[in-house]
């Protein structure tokens, strides 16, 4: 099926992030001057306005801060039924590192605030692009 959900325009500024997704790494900008993480990416650090930011990997582990099961939304998303739009708090620095995405792989009734989740990755069909989502943490036996 043709992918009809919006896709990012990748620019030189955002290229390292999408290169990371391709390698299944979630990267966020960190300020070299003051050490603050800055998600979502912005031209300069929100704490000290330094433009000296580097892309660093984070673990991708976190917890579900909040979510909605969306029944009426963009048609590209609702055509397969209700979907979960969520915010995850990543474990590295919970405050500013809140990340938006779709939570998949769970029965909607089983989704609970503060449950552990992790970032997962999916390739977009017919596009040379990998995007991220959230998924439940599967426990090793």
């Amino acid at each position, binding site marked *: 099926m043709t992918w009809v959900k919006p896709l990012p325009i990748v620019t030189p500024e955002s290229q390292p992030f999408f290169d990371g997704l391709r390698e299944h790494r979630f990267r966020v900008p960190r300020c070299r001057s003051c050490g603050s993480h800055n998600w979502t990416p912005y031209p300069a650090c929100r704490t000290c306005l330094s433009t000296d930011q580097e892309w660093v990997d984070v673990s991708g582990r976190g917890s579900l801060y*909040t979510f909605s099961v969306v029944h009426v939304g963009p048609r590209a998303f609702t055509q397969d039924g209700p979907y979960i739009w969520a915010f995850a708090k990543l474990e590295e620095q919970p405050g500013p590192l809140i990340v938006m995405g779709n939570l998949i792989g769970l029965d909607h009734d089983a989704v609970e605030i503060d449950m552990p989740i992790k970032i997962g990755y999916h390739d977009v069909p017919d596009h040379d692009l990998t995007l991220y989502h959230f998924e439940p943490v599967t426990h090793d036996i």
Partner: protein
Amino acid sequence: MGFPSGEVAIVGVYTTEQAQNHTRGGFDLEREALTGALADAGLTLADVDGIATTRPVSEVPGSYDPLYFWAEQLGRRPLRYLGSGLPAAALGKAATAVAAGLCDTFVLVHGKSGTKINPAKAGLPTSAPRVGAWSETIHGASRASWYAAWARRYMHEFGVTSEGLAQVAVDARHHATLNPASIMGRKGEITIDDVVNSRMIASPLHLLDCALDSDGGYAIVLTTTVRARDLRARPVQILGAGEGVYIDYYLNLPCPLFPPEGGAVRAAANTAFGLAGIGRHEIDVAGLYDCFTITLLRDLEEMGFCELGEAAAFVKDGNTRLGGAMPTNTDGGCLSNSHNGHPGGMHVIEVVRQLRGEVTPRRQVPNARLGVALSQGMSVMGGAGVLVMGVE
């Protein structure tokens, strides 16, 4: 030097017909609202020398800016003050400009028709739209989904139920039934059961937890209180104002969502009440932005009318309903009157009409002398404008 409390007054207000789907264009609504508000004041187009608009882009393609558009459209007179910000913030800042003599007659004008907030109104695309790298649309965000996520975390942290949210919609509809110009008033009263049993839009928000997605225009005119005494309507003086902007809308969510120090609304309200020298308890009537039921609950807390987590009880006790301590959104608000795309000015206008004492008797707050209006965006965290108003 202080805020020119009482030196500037709202002297003209006008609302066009509000409708789910207007047959007229946005500019036509702006034009009617502008001339209507001036007529309400007893002023003319020739008096206007300051303006603000809610438009992000001009009516005319290639135009430099929506405010420059108005400078040309109004006959190439020099406009002496161009406003900015959410409606209540734009009015507050314009009051300081009028008091200082930067301009004499300021008009805030809004008109919107056609474009819809609900993304389901657009069809299924045939190919993937390309958007900015961090766009919410990549993840299927909608306005309802943002407020739903806020509502879910709020309900989780403070033990508030869907019924607690629903009371806001019930009260808004009750007020709308007393406002013949409202879109939903003619449909009659609703109950809490009606709200929680209406279809789910984005859980936990049901259809009746959501504002209308309507069209309409309005305009508001300011001039000096000295001049206002010779004009048609009872002047509604601007006593205090404040603005607060914390985050860029719809890119990210602040975390934690409910910091005790508050966000944009708290900052704007503290400024406005502080400059006015008025306590929260003195307010007779309020117009608070209510794009969803959750929004009004958070407004009440961040404005300082009740404590964090207590707004549902405050509403349930009847404080915000006509007959209560601080009737709020007595026109039906965004939930049942109109959400015309930039409805912050509608809340100002309803407070003005209440303070003038000109609404129908069953809707009128008796002896209303002090009122407050809140315009905001991105829940209570993002951006806010607060206007404290009074009559002598």
